């Protein structure tokens, strides 16, 4: 076998990455063995089907990927900080911006949101787990090993380098002969299947497992947003699945779907990619809207203004999100009629989004607002996201877009939408729900320090990019000459990036500090919450609710606290729970190897791994495991320990 193709040459940075990956792996293995944690890891985490633990693993993986993607971002900002920088070469720069985009969207924003979904949704609807707990574990491990597959590309064989959108013909075998884009098609495929399964799982969970009395229009707004998001996932992801499969055929088996010869059509890739890609934007933004709605209602001590219009605006956004994809390639060559159509649908999205912004503002109006860390992120989101939205309308005008297309103006726009829209939301949600999961709050002082670093540095980093774009700086160029005059603003942007890095380090330091020193929360309701998740003890017992709550209104927990009545009327009985299983983890590992062998066209091992996948699927289909029961006495004992009283 030819070992040459595994190697990545030349860059001291890559050798550094190899060494650090190897050291980290050895460190983890030695640590696990030394502290005798292998059994604990396997029993409590790798085989778990508990939605809360799966959610925590999603969030941990997302934080890890946030730092990987963040380092990519720092490298890009450093390389462009001054004219003619020699920090990265062109090829390396291409790889870095490609993986930055892929990781931040697919392996940071998505899993962070899916993690919060996992932890919170069953609690918010008063359920004991998701509808298919084992399938949930399958989703997680497919996502995780898909992400790992993409990450090793950096040191084995080379990363994808044709941009996160991998436009053909550049991404074809002819113009990108390295294995980088094979990694792209396979890693995304594997984690995409996981996401698709999550979509099905959560639609069923929300439609079928709500507590008695919780009609659709009494669901918390986060649950609504997640329901709509998952519907979009189920309808949008198959398009990506097909497009990636065709890409794989093109690159591995010599088919001609997206090439420019033999009847292939390169532009069809861009078309299919954005048919998925635009709804994908709403897949990460809508749950964020849900998180903000919860936080604003809680910290204004009011119910959400315009609940019905909130729901309808999300439904309309979900429909419109499938009608706008061509605005990503106005300049590709279609006629005026097409561009006008997509221009109008794109601008139409601003209407339901505007409705939501006003609803949040009216919820704040005359509320008793407390400025906690999650609330600060939410309040910062509204103006910053509006800047992103308004520049989006500028880009939506097809004729004007011929000026902005592929410039830094676009880069500034989508960072102004995605960072407040998705990243601030998950950080806010993380601070907000942290005490629910771990039983203590994050430190507010440190949290606010991190907040101000992040908010100010964000604007310092990305606002200059609007002007750079208008000055004519295109995106994805790895260097520029001094005469262009791009230097000073890029240096300013780099300074902002350093500030952002400090903010995120503070955020992580806060987790460490709070774990050691924060007083444990004994109330299980530290924020005076409104929805059902705060009615469980913290940390949450495996069965979530000892007794299934009866819901009579929107914000049932708030209502119960006001009227001093209990949500739990029934007696405690035995509770049915699913058993842990190692099969999803093993399936993930096999998928990882299948992907890896396919990337390098190693057919025999790939076929073996493929058979392994089928065997595992069959084994899981014929599993005769009916779970176990927790006896009523045991539930009563646990509740006593957690609450100090029986319910």
């Amino acid at each position, binding site marked *: 076998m030819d070992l040459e193709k595994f190697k990545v040459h030349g860059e001291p940075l890559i050798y550094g990455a190899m060494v650090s990956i190897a050291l980290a792996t050895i460190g983890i293995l030695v640590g696990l063995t030394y502290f005798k944690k292998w059994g604990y890891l396997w029993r409590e985490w790798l085989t778990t089907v508990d939605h809360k633990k799966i959610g925590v693993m999603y969030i941990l993986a997302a934080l890890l990927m946030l730092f990987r993607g963040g380092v990519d971002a720092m490298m890009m900002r450093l390389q462009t900080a001054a004219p003619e920088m020699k920090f990265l070469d062109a090829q390396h720069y291409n790889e870095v911006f490609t993986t930055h985009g892929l990781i931040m969207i697919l392996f940071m924003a998505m899993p962070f949101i899916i993690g919060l979904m996992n932890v919170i949704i069953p609690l918010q609807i008063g359920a004991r787990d998701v509808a298919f707990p084992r399938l949930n574990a399958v989703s997680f491990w497919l996502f995780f090993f898909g992400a790992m597959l993409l990450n090793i590309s950096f040191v084995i064989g080379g990363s994808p380098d044709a941009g996160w959108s991998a436009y053909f013909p550049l991404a074809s075998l002819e113009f990108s002969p390295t294995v980088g884009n094979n990694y792209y098609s396979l890693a995304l495929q594997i984690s995409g299947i996981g996401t698709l399964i999550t979509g099905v799982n959560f639609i069923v969970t929300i439609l079928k497992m709500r507590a008695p009395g919780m009609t659709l229009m009494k669901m918390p707004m986060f649950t609504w947003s997640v329901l709509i998001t998952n*519907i979009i996932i189920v309808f*949008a992801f198959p*398009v990506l699945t097909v497009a990636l499969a065709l890409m794989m055929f093109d690159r591995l088996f010599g088919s001609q779907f997206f090439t420019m010869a033999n009847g292939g*059509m390169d532009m069809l890739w861009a*078309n299919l990619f954005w048919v998925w890609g635009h709804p994908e934007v709403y897949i990460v933004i809508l749950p964020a809207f849900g998180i903000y709605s919860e936080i604003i209602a809680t910290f204004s001590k009011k119910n959400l203004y315009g609940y019905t219009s909130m729901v309808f605006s999300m439904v309309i956004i979900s*429909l419109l999100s499938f009608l706008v*994809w061509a605005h990503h390639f106005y300049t590709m060559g*279609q*006629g005026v009629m*097409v561009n006008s159509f997509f221009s109008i649908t794109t601008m139409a999205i601003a209407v339901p989004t505007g409705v939501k912004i006003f609803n949040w503002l009216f919820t704040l109006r005359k509320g008793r607002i407390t400025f906690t860390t999650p609330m600060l992120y939410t309040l910062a989101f509204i103006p910053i996201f509006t800047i992103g939205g308004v520049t989006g309308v500028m880009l939506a005008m097809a004729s004007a877009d011929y000026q902005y297309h592929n410039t830094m103006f676009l880069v500034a726009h989508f960072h102004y939408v995605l960072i407040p829209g998705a990243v601030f939301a998950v950080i806010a949600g993380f601070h907000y729900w942290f005490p629910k999961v771990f039983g203590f709050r994050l430190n507010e002082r440190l949290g606010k320090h991190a907040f101000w670093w992040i908010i100010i540095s964000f604007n310092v980093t990305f606002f200059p990019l609007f002007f750079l774009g208008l000055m004519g700086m295109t995106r994805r160029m790895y260097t520029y000459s001094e005469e262009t005059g791009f230097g000073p603003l890029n240096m300013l942007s780099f300074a902002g990036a350093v500030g952002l890095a400090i903010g995120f380090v503070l955020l992580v330091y806060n987790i460490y500090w709070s774990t050691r020193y924060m007083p444990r929360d004994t109330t299980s309701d530290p924020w005076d919450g409104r929805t059902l998740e705060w009615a469980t003890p913290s940390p949450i017992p495996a069965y979530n609710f000892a007794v299934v709550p009866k819901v009579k209104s929107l914000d049932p927990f708030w209502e119960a606290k006001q009227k001093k009545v209990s949500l739990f009327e029934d007696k405690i009985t035995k509770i049915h729970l699913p058993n842990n299983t190692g099969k999803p983890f093993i399936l993930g590992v096999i998928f990882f190897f299948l992907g890896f062998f396919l990337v390098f066209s190693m057919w025999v091992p790939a076929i073996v791994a493929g058979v392994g996948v089928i065997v595992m699927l069959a084994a899981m289909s014929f599993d005769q495991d009916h779970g176990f029961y927790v006896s009523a006495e045991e539930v009563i004992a646990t509740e006593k320990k957690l609450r100090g009283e029986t319910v």
Partner: protein
Amino acid sequence: MIKQLFPIRHVMGYLASLVLSAAALIVIYGDLSHAANVVVLTVTAIIQASLQLFVFMHIGESADTKKELYINIAYALFVGLITLFGTLFIFVWGWYA
């Protein structure tokens, strides 16, 4: 008893979908006119789709979720047709030439 245990419906559905897939290959290996090819593809595709829906996706099995079912099908048709006709709109009818 044995009849209930063996999923005859699903096995027949599986075989039928294999036959339909093979039948569609006539378009490549046969020597039919363009119009006939389109007819073959359309007919096999429609039968294939309904086979999947009825045999494997249990459409029409439970009566109490009819409303959700129709909403779902409407949404699927919406997304599918938009993608299809949108692509034709971009690349064929509305192409700048």
